[in-house]
C-alpha cells in the first residue's frame, strides 16, 4: 500500500527539520521519500492533503495504566491502545500496578502479546519489587529481557530507602530508570492537596512535602548510586526546584508532568467531583506556575498523562472513598496545546521534544525519524482546531475525566505506525 501525505509542516527538532509544504511518501509502512512537491508515478497511491497540519515523530505517553491483567472492566491493552491512537500517540509505557503486578517475565510477555499487531507500541514498565510490596527486588534482568523498559512500584514510592538503593544499583547494569511515584507513605492517605481548600472542604489532605521528601530521597540516592531516577507526575513547586538543582549537579534525574497538573489547581475540587481526585493531588496556583517554569527551562523533560481508567461505580462514590485518577490519553495533547502552545509558554518544537523525543530517551528508546528508510511512526497534528471534549466519544473503556465539555484548541488528527494508520476515526492498514 502506498500513501502520500502532502503539504504538511514536518517538524523534528532532533533532525533540525521544520519544513512547510512538506510531502512524505510511505510504502508498506516505510518512509520511501520526503521533500517538496513529490511526484509519485504510481497508480494506486492514496493521497492525503495535510495543508495547515503538522507532522511530528510519533508521540509516546510513558505513564499509562492499561489495567490488564486484572481490571479488564476498566481498560484492556486493546482499548487503551485505541484510546492512545485516538489521542495522538503511537506508543505507550504501561505501569505495573495490575493484578497480578507486572513483576514476572510472563506478565510482560502477556502484555506484549495482547498488544501485538496494534498500531500502538506498548512498552511495559515492570514492578521494582515483587508484587510492588517493597520487600524483594523483582527479577529485573529477566523482566528487561522480556521487554520491560523501566522499573517502578507506581501507585506508591519504593517503600524503603534500602530497597531503592538496591534497585538503583541493580538497574545500573541495564541503564534503565527507576520511575518513582514520590509520596511519603506516612504522610499519604489524604483525598486532596493540603491548602486552605482542604480546610474549607473538610477533606483529609496530603501536604506537598509528602512528595518533596521522596523526591529529595530519590535524588540523593540517584547521586549516591549513580543510578537513574525518573520522577513521575511531578506536582509540587519544591519538587520542581529540587529536580532543577539536581540536574545542574549532573545527577541522573528526569521528570514528567501530567496535563492536569499544569491545567488545574485544587480549586477544581470545590465541587467534590471525584474526577478531580488524583494522586498526586491537584495543587495550588504557585505549584502550577513552578511546573510551567520547569517545562520551559527543561527541568521537566516530558508530558505524560497518568491515564488511570476507573469504573463509573467506583468514581460515583463519596469523594473520600473514590479511587484516585483520571483518564488522560484522549485529552493530553489538546490540553497541552491549549495551555502551553497557545498561551505561548512552549513552542511546537518544545512540545514535540516533550511528547516524542525526551520520553523515549528516558526509556532508552530510539525516537522515530521523518527520514527516508525509516518506519513511518508519525503523529499528525492540527494545532489550531477548536474542539470540545466529549467523553462519550472516548475509545477508552472508562469515562472518568474532569475535562468533559471543555473547549480546547489543537489536537492530534491521526497517527501512523506499524503499517497502520488511524485517521478520521478509523484504523486502516497501509
Amino acid at each position, binding site marked *: 500500500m502506498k500513501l502520500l501525505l502532502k503539504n504538511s509542516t514536518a517538524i523534528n527538532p532532533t533532525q533540525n527539520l521544520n519544513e512547510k509544504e512538506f510531502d512524505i511518501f510511505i510504502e508498506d509502512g516505510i518512509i520511501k521519500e520526503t521533500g517538496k512537491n513529490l511526484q509519485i508515478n504510481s497508480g494506486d497511491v492514496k493521497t492525503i492533503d495535510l495543508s495547515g497540519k503538522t507532522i511530528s515523530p510519533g508521540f509516546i505517553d510513558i505513564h499509562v495504566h492499561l489495567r490488564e491483567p486484572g481490571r479488564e472492566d476498566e481498560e484492556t491493552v486493546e482499548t487503551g491502545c485505541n484510546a492512545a491512537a485516538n489521542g495522538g500517540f503511537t506508543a505507550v509505557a504501561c505501569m505495573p500496578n495490575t493484578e497480578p503486578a507486572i513483576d514476572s517475565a510472563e506478565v510482560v510477555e502477556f502484555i506484549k502479546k495482547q498488544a501485538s499487531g496494534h498500531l500502538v507500541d506498548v512498552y511495559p514498565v515492570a514492578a521494582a519489587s515483587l508484587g510492588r510490596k517493597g520487600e524483594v527486588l523483582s527479577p529485573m534482568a529477566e523482566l528487561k529481557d522480556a521487554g520491560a523498559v523501566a522499573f517502578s512500584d507506581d501507585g506508591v514510592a519504593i517503600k524503603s530507602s534500602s530497597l531503592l538503593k538496591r534497585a538503583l544499583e541493580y538497574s545500573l547494569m541495564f541503564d534503565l530508570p527507576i520511575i518513582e511515584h514520590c509520596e511519603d507513605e506516612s504522610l499519604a492517605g489524604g483525598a486532596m492537596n493540603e491548602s486552605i481548600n*482542604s*480546610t*474549607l472542604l*473538610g477533606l483529609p489532605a496530603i501536604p506537598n512535602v509528602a512528595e518533596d521528601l521522596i523526591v529529595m530521597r530519590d535524588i540523593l540516592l540517584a547521586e549516591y548510586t549513580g543510578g537513574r531516577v525518573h520522577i513521575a507526575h511531578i506536582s509540587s513547586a519544591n519538587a520542581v526546584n529540587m529536580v532543577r538543582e539536581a540536574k545542574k549537579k549532573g545527577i541522573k534525574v528526569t521528570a514528567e508532568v501530567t496535563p492536569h497538573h499544569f491545567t488545574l489547581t485544587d480549586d477544581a475540587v470545590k465541587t*467534590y467531583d471525584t474526577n478531580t481526585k488524583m494522586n498526586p493531588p491537584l495543587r495550588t496556583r504557585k505549584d502550577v506556575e513552578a511546573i510551567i517554569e520547569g517545562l520551559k527551562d527543561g527541568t521537566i523533560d516530558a508530558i505524560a498523562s497518568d491515564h488511570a481508567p476507573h469504573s463509573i461505580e467506583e468514581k460515583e*462514590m*463519596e469523594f*473520600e472513598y473514590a479511587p484516585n485518577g483520571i483518564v488522560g490519553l484522549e485529552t493530553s495533547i489538546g490540553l497541552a496545546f491549549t495551555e502551553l502552545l497557545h498561551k505561548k509558554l512552549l513552542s511546537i518544537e518544545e512540545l514535540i521534544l516533550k511528547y516524542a523525543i525526551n520520553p523515549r530517551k528516558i526509556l532508552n528508546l530510539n525516537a522515530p525519524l521523518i527520514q527516508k528508510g525509516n518506519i513511518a511512526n508519525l503523529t499528525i497534528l492540527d494545532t489550531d482546531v477548536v474542539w470540545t471534549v466529549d467523553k462519550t466519544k472516548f475509545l477508552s473503556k472508562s469515562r472518568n475525566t474532569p475535562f468533559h465539555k471543555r473547549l480546547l484548541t489543537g489536537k492530534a488528527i491521526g497517527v501512523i505506525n506499524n503499517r497502520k494508520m488511524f485517521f478520521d476515526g478509523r484504523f486502516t492498514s497501509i
Partner: protein
Amino acid sequence: MSLSSRHLLGLQGVSKEDIQLILDTATTFREVLERPIKRVPTLQGKTVVNLFYESSTRTRISFELAEKRLSADAINFAVSTSSVNKGESLKDTVRNIEAMKVDMVVIRHAAAGTPLMLTKLCDANIINAGDGIHEHPTQALLDMYSIREKLGRLDGLKVCIVGDIAHSRVALSNIFGLKTMGAKVSVCGPSTMIPKYIEELGVDVIYNIDEAIQENDVLNVLRIQLERKAREYFPSIREYAKYFGITSERLEKNKKDILILHPGPINRGVELSSDVADGPYQIILQQVTNGVAVRMAVLYLLGTLN
C-alpha cells in the same frame, strides 16, 4: 421571608439575612417548646428521612424530635439497620429513598461533601447533619442562637473555638456563621490541631488557653474525640487537660464573666472539668433545648419553601 437556598449544606456562603431568619424563626419555635402541647401542624403531610451513616444519638434525636414537633412523618434510616451493610452504594440508597417520595433528607455521613452529592442524586431538600470534618451547620446555628439568647447579640462579640479545630465540622460551621454575623472569631488548641491555613479564613490563632479566656466573651469548647484519630495529635490526655482543659481555677484566675458552650457529649476532666461543666458559666443544656428549636426552624423554612 424565605431562605435563598432550598438546602442547608453548610454555613459557608450563607447570607446574614438567611442566618437571621433561621435564628428569628427558631425564637418562635422555642416558645412552642414551652407549651403544654409542643406540636404544631406546620409540616403535616411532609416526609423527612434521617439518613444517618454515622452513629449519632443527640443530633438524630434532636432532628427527630424537631420533625415530630412539626407534625412531619419522620423516618430513621441508620447504617446498622439498613442495606448499606449489604454493599449498596450511596447513590442507590438515595434513589431508593427518593422513590418512596420523601420531601426532605437529613444526612449525617463520615465523608465530606456527601450532602452536596445528595442534591445531585435526588430532588428532596437536603439538610446536612454533619459531613466528615467539613460542616455541621445546625450545630453552629444552635450555638449562635444560644449565644444570642444569653448575650443579646452576636455582632461584635469575641468568640473563641477551643479544641481540635482541624478535625471538627462544628468549628468550621461556627467560623463561617459567626463571622457572617459580625463576631470576632479565634481558635485555640494544640498547634497540631489547628489547620495550617486557618488564618486565611480571618480568624486569630491562640495557643494559650489563659489568653483565650482573658480575651473572649464566649468559649465554644469542642469535644476531643478520643475515639477518633485525635489522640495521635497530642501526647496524652493528661497533657491536653493540663494545657487546654477549662477548669474553674483557670476561669477564676483569668476572668469572671464568660459564656461556655459545648456541643456534647462532654469528656469530663478533659476539655471541661466537672465543676465547669455543671457550673454557672455554661449553657450546655440550653444548647440542647435550643437545638430542637433551631432544627424546627430549618425544617420549617426549607419544607415550606416550595
